């Protein structure tokens, strides 16, 4: 037995164990707790990276739980009865996003969270959320997907609302919890409908059986609705600004990665589960129009915001719109020639968004810590004391608005190019969204960091700067060498959805 064959399950089990053991270690000593958290975080990241290398070099990795050998996916009789973890290029790519965001969030949390304000609790919930996200991304079983979805829902809402000494977090958490739970139940209902028809829960097996009956269409609609609710697309976006605005900064960025895990679930449903029967352009049009609407509404709402946290939150929601637009273009028609470019754009944008929005949220956390408020009308002149943070915020703002040479430009260009082939109007809306975002964030930067010095601000500790530095380095690397990332990470992920369904099915069902 070597470690290499058990990577998929270890990447989920280690943070899960880390979460539940952490409060025990915290009781013993603070240092022990911190060392445990660092060890679990480092080990998880190492395994996610190793798994990605394995997937990109050898193809789809399948791991069967409870079998005598992990490769024994199908029980005698040609029927998968066990839970499988199926990691293809797309799953591995999403795992890398989660690992990056999780690592930055963990490093930031060490110095951002205060000892007397539930630090062990927040770290426990973070590991739980991390394990849930990785589980959603690696699982090859619909019911298992629902379970991990609910794990992320519960951990995420607890993270939003654990600061019970304030009234606003609980309000945001209640709202978020209601929407997450309804979304999760829609997914469960769809899973039940699929199980009732085909008697299986395995994604690959279901995909090979789904024939496009009326009940299948209902299930697809329920899955779309539930996952879009959790991803925070318009018209179910109202939880997102509350949650991102009220959650502590290190948690808010993981929430963004969590919405992307839901989007991953959506892609998996559209292109793998229903990949064989999805010919109706209606679904594509739905996703594209929701995407366009999301980015437009969110950007316009961002213009109105007076709270830095909510402003960034609407920026984050608008980016979900770009991803839906990019990948939705592919579902629009069967294999359009611009499809692969659109998909690359949408998927590349997921990673860019995780890094960029994460950086902005961490910078906003430093601002709140230094000035005690996130109200834009009360902030000003913080750039004198928070030089690095100001720089990072500026970088993040430019990248979010898609200004060359940053990463947001690289992925948005792919989306513009491909949407232009369909309708120049879509491109115009997308470009307009970017321009408005630039205006919004330029105003926010100017209002928060520039101007005369108004108060003494406590500079950010080194750990928090390191966390932001990691994200900034990723943004710069992806912006300066987008070709490298597109070729080695994004294209395998896009191809896994675009034409990898047969490989995915063959890897699980054999032959």
């Amino acid at each position, binding site marked *: 037995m070597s470690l290499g064959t058990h990577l998929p399950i270890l990447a989920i089990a280690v943070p899960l164990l880390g979460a539940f053991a952490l409060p025990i270690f915290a009781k013993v000593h603070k240092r022990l707790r911190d060392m445990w958290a660092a060890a679990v975080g480092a080990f998880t990241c190492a395994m996610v990276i190793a798994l990605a290398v394995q997937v990109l070099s050898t193809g789809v990795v399948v791991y069967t739980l409870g079998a005598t050998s992990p490769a024994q996916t199908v029980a005698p009789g040609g029927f998968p009865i066990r839970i499988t973890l199926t990691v293809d290029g797309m799953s591995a790519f999403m795992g890398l996003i989660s690992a990056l965001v999780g690592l930055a969030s963990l490093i930031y949390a060490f110095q951002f969270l205060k000892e007397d304000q539930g630090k062990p609790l927040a770290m426990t919930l973070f590991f739980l959320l991390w394990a849930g996200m990785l589980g959603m991304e690696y699982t090859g079983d619909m*019911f298992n997907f629902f*379970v991990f979805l*609910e794990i992320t*829902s*519960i951990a995420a*809402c*607890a993270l939003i*609302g654990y600061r*019970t000494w*304030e*009234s*606003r977090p*609980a*309000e*945001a*958490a*209640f*709202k978020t*919890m*209601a929407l997450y*739970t*309804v979304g*999760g*139940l829609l997914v*469960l*209902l769809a899973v*039940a409908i699929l*199980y*009732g028809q085909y*008697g299986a*829960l395995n994604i690959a097996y279901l995909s090979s059986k789904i024939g496009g009956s009326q009940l299948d269409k209902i299930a697809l609609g329920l899955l779309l609705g539930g996952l879009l609710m959790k991803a925070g697309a318009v018209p179910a976006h109202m939880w997102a*600004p*509350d949650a991102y*605005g*009220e959650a502590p900064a290190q948690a808010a960025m993981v929430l963004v990665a969590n919405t992307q895990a839901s989007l991953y679930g959506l892609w998996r449903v559209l292109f793998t589960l229903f990949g064989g029967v999805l010919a109706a352009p209606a679904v594509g049009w739905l996703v594209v129009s929701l995407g366009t609407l999301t980015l437009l509404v969110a950007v316009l*709402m961002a213009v*109105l*915001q007076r709270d830095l946290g*909510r402003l960034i939150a609407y920026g984050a929601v608008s980016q979900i719109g770009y991803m839906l637009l990019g990948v939705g273009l592919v579902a629009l028609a069967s294999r359009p020639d611009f499809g692969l470019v659109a998909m690359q754009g949408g998927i590349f944008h997921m990673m860019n968004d995780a890094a960029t929005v994460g950086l902005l949220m961490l910078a906003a956390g430093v601002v709140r810590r230094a000035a005690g408020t996130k109200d834009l009308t009360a902030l000003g002149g913080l750039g004198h004391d928070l030089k690095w943070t100001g720089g990072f915020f500026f970088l993040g703002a430019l990248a979010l608005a898609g200004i060359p040479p940053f990463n947001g430009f690289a992925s948005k260009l792919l989306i513009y190019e491909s949407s232009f082939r369909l309708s120049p109007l879509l491109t115009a809306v997308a470009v307009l969204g970017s321009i408005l975002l630039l205006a919004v964030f330029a105003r926010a930067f100017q209002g928060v960091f520039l101007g005369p010095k108004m108060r003494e601000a406590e500079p950010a500790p080194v750990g928090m700067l390191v966390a932001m530095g990691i994200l900034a380095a990723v943004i710069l690397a992806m912006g300066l060498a987008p070709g490298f990332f597109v070729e080695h990470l994004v294209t395998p992920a896009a191809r896994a959805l675009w034409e990898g369904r047969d490989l995915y099915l063959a890897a699980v069902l054999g032959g």
Partner: protein
Amino acid sequence: MIGNLPFVACMILIGLGLWTLLSRRNLIKLAIGITLIEKGVNLFLVTLGYVEQGVAPIYTYTQPGVTMVLPTPQALTLTSIVIGMATTALMLAFAVVIYRHRGTLDARKIRELKG
């Protein structure tokens, strides 16, 4: 038609839950609405696994040749009930916190966060 009656009942339960969510403003009642949807889905799962004249799927106590109901949906339902308990407990906990701070459970009056 009569065989579909349990499914219809589940859908009515889910519908009632959705209607509660949309029409009520008390936070506790919203939690009840979500619980109703959840119970409807759980019932749906159990109903799916029912086999006409089936007995509980425990091998030790049954005579050979007896039909059993499907065990998988029951396992799924058990998992779903546990998850549902966790979400309901968390929602009610948030309702308690909100009540302590604001002195009300009326969702219309708790509007610190908007726009």
